[in-house]
């Protein structure tokens, strides 16, 4: 899907610190609530972003200094969140999907966070931005119903 008509609402840069997971969730909650997204969908988006940001901080930056940028926007009735970071290049969409039906002892160790992320959104894509930073795009479809012009603070009369 080409997102050529995304209306961006915010772009916020956070220090790559595990303590910023809650502020990242608060940002997503505020922005999506303003767009009229229901609580269940907000939870899904917060969980997906938390899992990805956690992986970036713990495995990408290996708990060292860094940044994570969160962009939130919408396209028609779809909600779009882009997470960017300057950690070493890593495409989380290539993480193998664990078979959750296997007996526990036969399961691979890694990939639970990405597995959860895949289930929380409808689109989960990776690319490098123009500066070579990791950029993951999450899309949850058909979850916006409120008048978005009102949400943007515009006069819709």
């Amino acid at each position, binding site marked *: 899907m080409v997102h050529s008509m995304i209306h961006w609402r915010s772009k916020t840069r956070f220090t790559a610190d595990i303590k910023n997971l809650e502020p990242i969730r608060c940002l997503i909650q505020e922005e999506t609530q303003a767009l009229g997204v229901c609580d269940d969908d907000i939870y899904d988006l917060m969980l997906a972003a938390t899992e990805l940001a956690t992986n970036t901080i713990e495995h990408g930056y290996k708990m060292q200094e860094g940044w994570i940028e969160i962009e939130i926007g919408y396209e028609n009735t779809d909600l779009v969140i882009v997470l960017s970071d300057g950690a070493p290049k890593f495409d989380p969409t290539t993480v193998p999907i664990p078979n*959750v039906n296997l007996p526990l002892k036969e399961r691979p160790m890694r990939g639970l966070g990405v597995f959860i992320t895949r289930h929380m959104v409808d689109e989960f894509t990776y690319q490098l931005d123009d500066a070579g930073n990791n950029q993951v795009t999450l899309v949850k479809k058909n979850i916006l119903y409120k008048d978005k012009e009102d949400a943007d603070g515009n006069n819709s009369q």
Partner: protein
Amino acid sequence: MEITVSEHAGEKTITILHIDGYLDSSNYTQLIDQAQELFSLGTENLLLDMEKCGFISSAGLRAFYGIAMIMRGNGPPDSSQVWTTFSEMRADIDKMTGACCKILNLQPKVKQSLEITGILKYLDIYNDLETALASF
């Protein structure tokens, strides 16, 4: 996240940890440390009350795993054995043996989101206090 501790005195003494707030990678070790402290003070039966915990990431599963390890008397958690531990914990529950860790009142959305991992079925989860207490 705030953790408060209460005790239910009965045939068995059951220690209840009441979790208030969110549980993610920033604070899950706090919960494990609390369980470790209680275990070292002699706690044998632990109930995690999650009623006021409105958000749990996959790190919460790490916390449940870590606490299961502690309550089994296996010492500090080793992440390389996570799946084995969940499996053995279920076996313990089925056989009603070993130190016990049970979970009470997972919020519906939290439960739904973690159910996809297939791991919750290996945990002993209750929806009401009375049944949870009687299960020890």
